[in-house]
């Protein structure tokens, strides 16, 4: 019996693809490599590289883990893959130059930022039809959604605003002016705070979603790093809202922020030009994409420690971890 279970375990590990629930697949889009690198979240090994179209950037996965969405920016569409086989199942109309998107918590619809066209496109993930095009500011990029799914946030990089969009009527009901080049918008799970990063401004604005006002601006100061190199991009918040991670671009650091006081508590050294991040479902690890060193750093969330860096493809951009 003992031998038998060992044999089963061994074969499961060898198969790789079929490993049981503990390991999750990690998907990293490589902007210049036109592919996605798939990693194993437990062994932290590369499973494979898969072509996904031209200039893949934003990447996300359905809540049931059955559909992987990739913004193929230069193909002007969203490509959808079977996360297990990495075979393309269909495409979604995205509008031109899709960069980043966010899924409704229910898995439908998908809200896509069209960077070259000053639009947010809304697409039904079931019917594959475009539901709406919402005119926003110049160079829309960051996309966030409230935990209740009622408010979609888009940030426009040259207009410098976070646009609050009603997710059902598709109307903008508030605009909050933030610092230069807002790249990313992230709610905490309680829906009480909205974090918006400003790449050139060098700050993260903490916005009260109720009043749509900035309550605090988090700034960063790292000894030995030029202030100009501190460029906040990706933001992730733990489910309990207690820890906020901010990727600081060419500062090659991820800031760890206390989600209650919004004070910076630590800086973690990662690879070069860190932009986007993704948690494992159990929040044991946080993966970061390092575009200039072509690797992914793995952060141990509880310990605030970088435990490994994994070479991926050319200019890694986005990352998402399968929910199951």
């Amino acid at each position, binding site marked *: 019996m003992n031998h038998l279970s060992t044999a089963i375990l061994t074969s499961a590990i060898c198969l790789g693809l079929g490993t049981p629930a503990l390991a999750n697949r990690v998907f990293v889009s490589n902007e210049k490599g036109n592919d996605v690198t798939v990693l194993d979240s437990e062994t932290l090994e590369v499973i494979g590289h898969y072509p996904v179209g031209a200039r893949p950037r934003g990447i996300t996965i359905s809540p049931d883990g059955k559909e992987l969405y990739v913004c193929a920016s230069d193909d002007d569409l969203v490509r959808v893959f079977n996360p297990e086989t990495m075979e393309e199942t269909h495409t979604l109309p995205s509008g031109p130059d899709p960069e980043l998107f966010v899924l409704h918590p229910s898995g439908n619809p998908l809200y896509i930022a069209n960077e070259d066209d000053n639009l947010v496109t809304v697409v039904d993930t079931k019917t594959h039809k475009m539901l709406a095009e919402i*005119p926003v500011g110049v160079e829309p990029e960051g996309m966030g959604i409230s935990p209740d799914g009622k408010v979609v946030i888009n940030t426009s990089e040259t207009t410098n605003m976070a646009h609050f969009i009603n997710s059902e009527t598709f109307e903008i009901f508030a605009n909050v002016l933030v610092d230069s080049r807002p790249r990313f918008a992230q709610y905490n799970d309680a829906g009480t705070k909205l974090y918006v990063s400003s790449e050139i401004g060098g700050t993260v604005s903490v916005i009260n979603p109720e009043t749509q006002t900035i309550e605090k601006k988090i700034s960063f100061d790292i000894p030995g790093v030029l202030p100009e190199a501190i460029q906040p991009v990706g933001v992730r918040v733990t489910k309990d809202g207690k820890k906020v991670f901010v990727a600081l671009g060419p500062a090659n650091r991820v800031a760890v922020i206390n989600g209650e006081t919004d004070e910076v508590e630590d800086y973690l050294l990662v690879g070069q030009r860190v932009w986007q991040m993704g948690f494992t479902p159990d929040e044991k690890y946080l993966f970061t994409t390092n575009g200039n060193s072509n690797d992914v750093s793995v952060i141990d969330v509880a310990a605030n420690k970088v435990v490994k860096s994994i070479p991926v493809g050319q200019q890694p951009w986005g990352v998402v971890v399968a929910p199951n």
Partner: protein
Amino acid sequence: MKGRIIILLAGLCATSPAMAQQAAQKPAQTVRAAVLRVDMNELPPISRLDTPPADLGFAGARLAIDDNDTTGRFMGQDFEALEITATPQTAVAELDKLLAEGISFIVTLADEENTLKLADQAGDRALIFNARARGDRLRGADCRFNTIHTAPSHAMMADGLAQFLMWKKWSDWFLISGSHPEDIALADAYRRAATKFGAKIVEERIYEDTGGGRRSDSGHVQVQQQMPVFTQRAKEHHVVVAADEAGIFALWLPYQTWDARPVVGSAGLVPHSWHPSLEAWGATQFQNRFEKLATRTMRDEDYQTWLALRMIGEAATRTNSTESATLKDFMLSDRFEVAGFKGQKLTMRDWDHQLRQPILLTTGDVTASVSPQDQYLHQTSALDTLGIDRPETQCKF
């Protein structure tokens, strides 16, 4: 072109129904500006690839107005920029017309002399944005309080290149300058940069513009004979630094020098404020937007004009105002910053009204490096390692 005036209206961007739906409730307040380009009766450039397009600078203005108007929809603000071409003879009269219309933001695309003439004519009636002239005297002894420089100065360009050369340990320079006053001014900037960063100019020569050898059917044949001879027997050097603002000879230097040395400056590795090869810092989508609108790639003059009008738009957004005086005060304050797709915020030097900005070092096809180089530190801003810093300025407002 003599005396011909072209007036175009730009930025009256079509309002689609969807856009109208999103527009702010209050009636839009308009910010008016003009781009005044003074075209000289110049010879064609050495390379036909460098022939200036008819919409040089104006295309950058159109993109800026599009950008400003998109943001303006959320602010209840509207932007426009008149596009005017003039000759040195008609420039002042054209400026007077704009001032009479009450336009108080004027972007100039002119040489040093005409830029200064226009600035003095405008006086306190308008804020001038110099989007072309690089001369250091416009930021020094001849600076004007009413003039903001979005074009980087010769000193900034020379320092940007010098930092890179010192990082390469290419410290011994063979400086070849043209014989025109603007070439001599540029050569001065290289001499200053050499002193500032510890390079040695081991040899200097002047390439006299005798009116020939520029471009003719047999241009390359002549050049192939002339350039090796011209550069023969120079003292041992690491690089040839070409100061050829007039565009007479430098492009003929690479591969034609007596010694096998790289050419930098006006040819080879060339400092620019913008280059169509740049992809970092969101530049790709900026290039895409421009190329879609202009059906050509972006040049320095387009970028510098875009930057001037974006400064106005940014000031209007941040101050929530369209009042000229409010916008001007804000742009000249230490609170002002604007993003320009070069990886960091661009801010204003209060001592000479030069906009701080990184300098791209480019070859024909790529952006090879961007200065300031990381090794050069500064107590205020790394960007102040480029150009004339506060303690050394000759500008007195």
